[in-house]
């Protein structure tokens, strides 16, 4: 375990060394949140609530969804695909660690960095600019952090799967882009899942995406309580475990048919 924690620490320090890039990142996120903030306030107009969500819950939801994204988001799919294409993966395979676990820990180091230097200051700035009313209490915050951790796991697992596709597709840049677009919509980043028509909500119950953004953000905005909340966390847990199966299977198969293109 020690070596994996070290991987995480190194990635964290690496990000720290290049931190200036992250300040423009905060501005970009603020701009995005701003776009949705104005859009949603316009959509609500005079209406008190839509689908049981009030306008102030909605703006909080949008803000926290983006800031949580800074934590769970990573480019592991791109990194893995690149290492496979460049043949570097062959070296990684003979090193004395599990390649995929190393990647996950690097992603976590990156996520923790962004959470501390990006999400927290970013959220304070955004809350200030857009006058968000945040219902603060320790339980909500704790549950939100647990849910966010699961969303990191699920998102990272999906990234590993898309990244590993490079073993079979050789060039999967388009595939990675398509995945990102799908996740932004179906995870609930731009619009809560309850705004989808019922049949679509039904289908999405069988997909992992809402575990990425909708569940933690809804918990934070206090739109999810009691039984629904426990069910939601259970949903995340099941997917976090379940997604390990295809990863292990694909990884086993990929190692057998590895073709290094140069390198």
């Amino acid at each position, binding site marked *: 375990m020690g070596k994996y924690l070290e991987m995480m620490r190194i990635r964290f320090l690496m990000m720290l060394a290049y931190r200036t*890039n992250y300040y*423009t*990142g905060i*501005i*970009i996120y603020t*701009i*995005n949140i*701003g*776009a949705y903030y*104005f*859009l949603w*306030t*316009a*959509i*609500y*107009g005079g*209406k008190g609530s*839509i*689908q049981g969500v009030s306008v102030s819950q909605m703006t909080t939801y949008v803000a926290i969804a983006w800031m949580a994204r800074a934590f769970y988001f990573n480019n592991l799919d791109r990194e893995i695909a690149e290492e496979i294409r460049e043949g570097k993966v062959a070296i990684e395979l003979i090193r004395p660690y599990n390649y995929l676990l190393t990647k996950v820990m690097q992603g976590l180091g990156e996520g923790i960095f962004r959470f501390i230097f990006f999400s927290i200051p970013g959220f304070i700035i955004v809350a200030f600019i857009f006058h968000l009313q945040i219902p603060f209490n320790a339980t909500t915050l704790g549950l939100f952090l647990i849910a966010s951790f699961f969303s990191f796991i699920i998102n990272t697992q999906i990234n590993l799967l898309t990244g590993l596709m490079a073993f079979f597709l050789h*060039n999967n*840049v*388009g*595939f990675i*882009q*398509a995945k990102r*677009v*799908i996740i*932004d*919509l179906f995870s609930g980043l*731009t*619009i809560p899942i309850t*705004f*989808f*028509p019922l049949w679509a909500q039904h289908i999405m119950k069988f997909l992992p995406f809402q575990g990425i953004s909708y569940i933690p953000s809804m918990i934070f905005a206090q739109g999810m309580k009691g039984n629904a909340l426990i069910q939601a966390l259970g949903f995340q847990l099941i997917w976090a475990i379940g997604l390990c199966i295809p990863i292990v299977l694909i990884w086993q198969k990929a190692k057998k048919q590895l073709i290094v293109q140069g390198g």
Partner: protein
Amino acid sequence: MYYTSMFFQYMGQYFKTKFQYRADFFMSFFSDLLAQAVNLIFILLVFNHTNYIKGWNKDEIIFIYGFFLVPFALFGAFFNIWDFNDRYIVKGEFDRILTRPIHSLFQVILEKLELESLIGAVTGLIIMIYAGSNLGLTVRWYDPIIFLIMVIGGTLVYGGVFIALASIGFWSDARTSIMPLMYNISNYGRYPINIYNPIIRFVLTWILPFAFVGVYPAAYFLHKSEWYMYSFLTPIVGIVVFCLSVFIWNVGVKKYRGAGN
């Protein structure tokens, strides 16, 4: 004349290289289409729960989005210079550009063609026709001409802003994330301008005039006469922004000292 023939020669080469890697070509087609579909789904979902956004109905907002896609696609195809700093300045590639007989900006644009983006213009037109027929819009004989002028105006606004930003590279070769920043701001132009607060409205009209890419020109075709003044400013703003950016570029080229050995 010389420039046009150069343009078509580069285009021919472009297609040859792209069709060598057909799978990539179609994959990027597909992911563009998917991104557009997702944006459209978002609008449809929102209008399941409301009938109007600040006086604009569903089909009008869809129409604005459709219009926006056309200049945006042209921009993506011909002014895809967001990595100019990395590709040309930092790596010293720009020295090579300067030895070429055509204008440096034109040469860069030729090398950075990304014609598969043009698919967006097709989706945009389909979306506009769909929304337009729902709204019962009639097409007068001069509308296609005005449409063309508006689209060119919007493309010039977009292209101009990004050329000006790329020119920053001549003064400072430090890596900046200003391009993605601007890209995100430009998304504001996809929605009616009156949903934003007055400061943002002012910025999107007069400072970073992205509103002239989507909502202002589209308002003309939607017969929103209260916005006509801005609609007809579109080509003028486009030309002004573009000329200004070419001027900045030219000044930058004079300042350029080269990097590396």
